[in-house]
């Protein structure tokens, strides 16, 4: 039986959107898929050495419940709906939301992004960074983890054209 293949294009650079590519890629690898992720535009943040740049923001994101990861049950179940205009003027709001999200992640036994990324690398998921957007955003190759390859759209298609599953995230 031929090895199954999966390709993912990762285009988002926030803590929440870092999950789908790494979860799917690590799981695919565990299921025996040959897997590749192409990081482009804001997705480049996911392959930086410093992952503390990943934040999550409830601002302008009506789908995100804002709940406290501590305290008694009734307190945890409150959804802190806050108008965008108020969220926008509180300094450090994003940092607070990110810290709360990370605590929620830990409380639920969900893996961290550094952990999932490492599991992908251990499972030999191939990471490709889009050279054009690296330059566009003024990144240096030294900003990124080792083991990355740099390429363009044609590089992506070389592998993607042979895949069973191909996702844009």
């Amino acid at each position, binding site marked *: 039986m031929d090895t199954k293949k999966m390709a993912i294009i990762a285009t988002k650079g926030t803590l929440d959107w870092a999950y789908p590519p790494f979860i799917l890629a690590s799981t695919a690898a565990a299921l025996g898929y040959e897997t590749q992720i192409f990081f482009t535009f804001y997705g480049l943040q996911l392959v930086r050495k410093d992952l503390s740049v990943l934040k999550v923001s409830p601002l302008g994101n009506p789908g995100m419940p804002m709940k406290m990861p501590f305290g008694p049950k009734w307190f945890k179940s409150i959804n802190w709906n806050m108008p965008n205009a108020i969220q926008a003027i509180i300094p450090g709001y994003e940092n607070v939301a990110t810290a709360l999200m990370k605590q929620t992640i830990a409380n639920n036994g969900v893996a961290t992004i550094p952990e999932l990324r490492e*599991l992908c690398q251990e499972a030999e998921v191939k990471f490709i960074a889009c050279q054009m957007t690296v330059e566009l955003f003024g990144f240096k190759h030294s900003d990124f983890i080792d083991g990355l390859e740099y390429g363009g759209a044609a590089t992506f298609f070389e592998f993607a054209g042979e895949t069973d599953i191909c996702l844009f995230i």
Partner: protein
Amino acid sequence: MNFDKELDARGLNCPLPILRAKKALSEVTSGQVLKILSTDPGSVKDFAAFAKQTGNELLSTAEAGGEFTFFMKKK
């Protein structure tokens, strides 16, 4: 049931139980049995799907008090 290795994946959430199981299976030989403990309700369907796709045999699935026990035989 007899088993050769045990994996405690309690408290872990998707996809960690599967990833840890994959790793644990790589540490046993063909025909040996891995016992897996999990508290993730999603892991019931996930381990069945994992077995189906990887060819490892899921010998049994049991639930008791919110805890799941799987026995998986390595291909």
